């Protein structure tokens, strides 16, 4: 029994990881057992998916725009401005699109989830659910998880779409890159697998956000102060997990979908 106590940080970390994994396990068990309340899923898709569109479109568009401009400034010095299109689109699909979408969703949706569930916890509403023979994981976590896994890939797709439109506008209309070159090169160097990679990352990030946020909410203690704390932690921890997870995902997905090769 000495080991865990001599490393309190490790111990807390393992406990935390265990709790999140346990919650995920319970949720997927319920999903596969068909305990899905579709009415609540739709409600959550509306809140998460539709509600996040503005944020995601603006993020995608301006990231695409600024990345195009900067790439152009660097590449045109080397007379390579026709490479701007594919560089931007591949970078958007493989990294920027999914990561930035996930960070925005973590800030917007993850925070809301942990605040809402946390408030329910400290005001005994979770206990009221249990007392009414309703499983809180089935009622609160399952719909959010399903809605997130549906919404995130679509939001990532939307982010990419608007990123590439913005990229085209900046490159072609503003910086005078040849329209045909831009489109032709972008089309040639961006593959279906890049889009698949973006969407897969979206699903993984959805899972990270929803279980971290719900775990924070369900373990909230100490009234309003506790709700504030778990909300902050949900955003910080899920954002960090997105950034760290993204590195490992990139390495793993690069084996499945090697870059460049057709």
């Amino acid at each position, binding site marked *: 029994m000495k080991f865990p106590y001599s490393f309190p940080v490790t111990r807390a970390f393992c406990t935390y990881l265990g709790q999140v994994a346990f919650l995920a396990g319970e949720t997927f068990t319920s999903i596969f057992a068909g305990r899905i309340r579709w009415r609540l899923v739709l409600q959550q898709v509306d809140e998460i998916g539709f509600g996040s569109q503005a944020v995601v479109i603006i993020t995608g568009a301006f990231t695409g725009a600024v990345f195009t401009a900067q790439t152009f400034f660097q590449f045109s010095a080397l007379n390579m401005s026709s490479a701007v299109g594919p560089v931007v689109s591949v970078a958007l699909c493989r990294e920027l699109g999914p990561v930035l979408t996930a960070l925005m969703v973590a800030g917007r949706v993850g925070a809301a989830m942990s605040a809402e569930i946390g408030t*329910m916890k400290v*005001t*005994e509403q979770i*206990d*009221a659910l*249990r007392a*009414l023979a309703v499983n809180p994981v089935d009622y609160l976590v399952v719909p959010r998880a399903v809605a997130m896994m549906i919404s995130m890939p679509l939001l990532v797709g939307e982010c990419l779409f608007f990123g590439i439109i913005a990229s085209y506008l900046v490159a072609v209309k503003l910086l005078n890159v040849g329209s045909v070159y831009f489109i032709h090169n972008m089309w040639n160097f961006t593959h279906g697998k890049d889009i698949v990679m973006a969407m897969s990352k979206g699903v993984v990030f959805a899972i990270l956000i929803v279980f971290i946020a719900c775990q924070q909410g369900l373990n909230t203690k100490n009234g309003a102060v506790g709700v504030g704390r778990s909300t902050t932690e949900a955003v910080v921890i899920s954002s960090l997990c997105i950034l760290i997870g993204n590195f490992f995902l990139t390495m793993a997905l690069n084996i499945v979908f090697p870059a460049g090769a057709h």
Partner: protein
Amino acid sequence: MSVDNLIEVRNLRQTLSGQEILRGVNLDIPRGETVVLLGQSGGGKSVFLRHLIGLIRPLSGSIKIDGEEISRLSERELEPVRRKIGMLFQDGALFDSMTVFDNVAFPLRERGERSEKVIREKVAHSLELVSLQGQEKKMPVNLSGGMRKRAALARAIISEPSCILYDEPTAGLDPIVSDTINRLIRRLQTQLKVTSIVVTHDMISTNYVADHVALLREGRIHFTGTLSALHSSTDPVIRDFIEGRSHEID
């Protein structure tokens, strides 16, 4: 078998945050009767009630509901037990994302009632029983504390449980509404044979609804008996409680 007990609690112990709250509670709740649980504020009455529907797991001891030991059941195994029991939380614990109507309708919908007509009728009836008719569309935040408690009571009784746990049902209510609630508790018992545990400080309520009284003190049941045994007791602790005396020196 002498008495038919719906609930039997043996040697129930609980420690929360290092504080010993229940130190061996023994209590029987006879089927179809109303037991009032008295005790000081902070004495562990709410904690005790939460054990009876498995919201808290005992540190040790046994809780039998309808002959079934519930203290080792998993969350999902507890669900059938919880369907038999309604609970009124001390602060109501209404779902604040839903209107009063949806709160009260919640147990019906979760138990598979699909007909909106049936739901509307039952909700209206339930709200009428707690004199909250016409408040269906309000959100819980826009209700006073007493109204919230009554809405929560309407939610607890709508699925007609065979046992109801009331955590301070009349605290914070005006005397007239208190009387309505007391009559309702009595009526549920006489007409529907509901078994009840009523946690309260309110002696008027106690006198009105109790068949049996139990006094929780220092984590144990200090006294159990009928209402008249309570009133004829000469135990100073009980007398102080009934007469509302503290021993602070001013």
